[in-house]
């Protein structure tokens, strides 16, 4: 095997984040194409609990980089911890997720190491000419740019979360584990986290929401609106509605979506009982639209990524329950994985 492909992992209280698992899946495919090793870096105060989870994704080497100052992400701490490690390893590609952490760290890392940078990729692969090919959306997703560079060029890239989906876990294998204890001191850190507050979907502005569940006149009644609220709760989504939903008193004025209300750009927009009038849909620029409607000819059904013909009052409670069960199982298995 020649060279290596590295993934810098992100974790939360439940373990490795899905965006990291996506990056590992993409890096695995690339490593297979290039006949290279896949190496994953786990940074934190203590990362033993997520080593097992990472090992399920066909990783060759896991780097455990541990230090109390790595407990929370700060640019200087992560940069100093990774710099020497990467300079020594000299991998073909370092892949991060295009999250607030990845977007902060990747360009600084590239600049520090004097390596190339391609942020926000949706596809990283080996080209037929033997070069690395990276594809990223640009101009508000109106075009795709294709970048190419020789393998010896060294690139730092970020992968857009949700670009490819999470790969299925493989049979657990025992990767090589290397421990690192970087020399960090609090004097090196020029930024300090003073406060962290969790966002509340109920108060989050629509313009900032990443997942929105909306209803329209098809919901039928205020009591019926509870199915929308429940789906939103279980998905951690923000609730919105159409002008008719506002007129019928289902939502307050600041939750109206459309040209006359809020223009939205979420990753996921679930619209139930929304026909998709032009003044509504003109204010929606979502990457994924799921529409549930009894009328298969409703305008929104044609614009959806997934259009479901059916009664929202029958489908949404079942969906809520399905997601709830899945999340409970997932939490249980992640607890099992970390045990």
């Amino acid at each position, binding site marked *: 095997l020649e060279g290596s492909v590295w993934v810098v992992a992100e974790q939360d209280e439940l373990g490795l984040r899905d965006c990291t698992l996506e990056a590992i899946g993409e890096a695995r495919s690339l490593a297979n194409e290039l006949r290279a090793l896949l190496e994953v870096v786990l940074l934190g105060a203590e990362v033993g609990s997520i080593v097992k989870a990472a090992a399920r994704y066909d990783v060759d080497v896991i780097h455990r980089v541990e230090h109390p100052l790595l407990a929370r992400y700060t640019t200087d701490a992560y940069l100093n911890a990774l710099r020497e490690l990467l300079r020594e390893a000299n991998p073909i590609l370092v892949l991060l997720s295009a999250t607030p952490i990845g977007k902060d760290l990747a360009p600084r890392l590239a600049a520090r190491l004097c390596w190339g940078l391609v942020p926000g990729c949706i596809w990283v692969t080996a080209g037929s000419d033997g070069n690395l090919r990276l594809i990223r959306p640009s101009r508000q997703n109106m075009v*795709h740019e294709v970048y190419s560079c020789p393998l010896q060029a060294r690139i730092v890239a970020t992968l857009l979360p949700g670009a490819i*989906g999470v790969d299925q876990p493989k049979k657990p294998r025992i990767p090589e584990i290397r421990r690192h204890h970087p020399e960090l001191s609090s004097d090196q850190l020029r*930024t300090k986290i003073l406060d962290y*507050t*969790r966002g509340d979907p109920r108060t989050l502005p629509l313009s900032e929401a990443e997942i929105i569940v909306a209803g329209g006149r098809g919901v039928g009644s205020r009591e019926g609106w509870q199915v929308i609220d429940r789906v939103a709760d279980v998905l951690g989504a923000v609730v919105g509605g159409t002008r008719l939903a506002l007129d019928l008193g289902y939502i307050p004025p600041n939750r109206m979506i459309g040209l006359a209300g809020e223009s939205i750009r979420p990753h996921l927009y679930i619209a139930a009982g929304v026909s998709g009038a032009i003044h509504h849909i003109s204010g929606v620029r979502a990457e994924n639209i799921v529409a549930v409607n009894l009328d298969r000819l409703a305008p929104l059904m044609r614009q959806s990524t997934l*259009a479901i013909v059916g009664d929202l009052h029958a489908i949404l409670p079942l969906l809520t329950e399905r997601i709830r069960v899945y999340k409970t199982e997932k939490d249980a298995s992640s607890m099992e994985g970390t045990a």
Partner: protein
Amino acid sequence: MSLTVVVCVKQVLFAALPRSRDDEELLVFKDESRPVYALDPSDISALELAIYLKENAGASVMALTLGPDRAQEVLRICLARGTDAATHLICPEEMQWDHWQLTGLVARGLDQRRPDLVLCGDESLDDAWSAFGPFLAERLGWPQVTRAENLELQQEGGILVRRRLERGDREVLACQLPAVVSVCPFAKEPQYVSVSRVMMIPPQRIDRVPANCEEPPLSQLRRIEVRAPRSRPRRVSMPAANLRAAERISFLMSGGRVRKDGDLFEGTPHQAAEKIFEFLKERGFV
């Protein structure tokens, strides 16, 4: 001593213009002879934050841009909005410099000004690289804060920055000065600047400095193609034999890593709920 703030702004092509496809299926703007340029939305937020510091903390604010002659239009907007000075680093229209080269030029342009704080947009409307702030911070050897939405000066000399994270989460950071802070789009409500105020700004108020880059690019990375968006092709993959039965079934049902666009589904409520669930799972929303 008052704070010196430099706000770096960029003129971007207004993307929401009528477009058509050329012979090679590349999206092109219908009227290339009359493109519409605008001040980038995240740079407007950075400008508003700088003006806030001027009005509330007595900071002196300078706007800086790098671009061809047409880019001075954004500096006139900045001056009309209230910046004290404006510098235009003039480069040819067809320049193809990477972020490393651009930030090298800007860092040299900042040398004489010795600012305490550099503000810039976090993610531009056109290429959305989010790299300018971190690259410039590295060039200057300063700390960086990205995705800022508010900024306050501290008594003891640093700044307090509120960062916008995912799903409405917020983080408050204390940061030493000097620093580079990149600001989220729409973080600050922009104040209206009338056309007449912009027109009244004499061009002489803009300090024009020719910029020439002799530094090599950071890497051998080349953009080889710009094309219409295309979904990734279906990856046909079989579940591994060593997976548990439930995992194999789940893998087959989700079709592996597949993107299907424009699906219409009709079935029983259970099937419909399952279909939506698989869709959400496949795309990482649950």
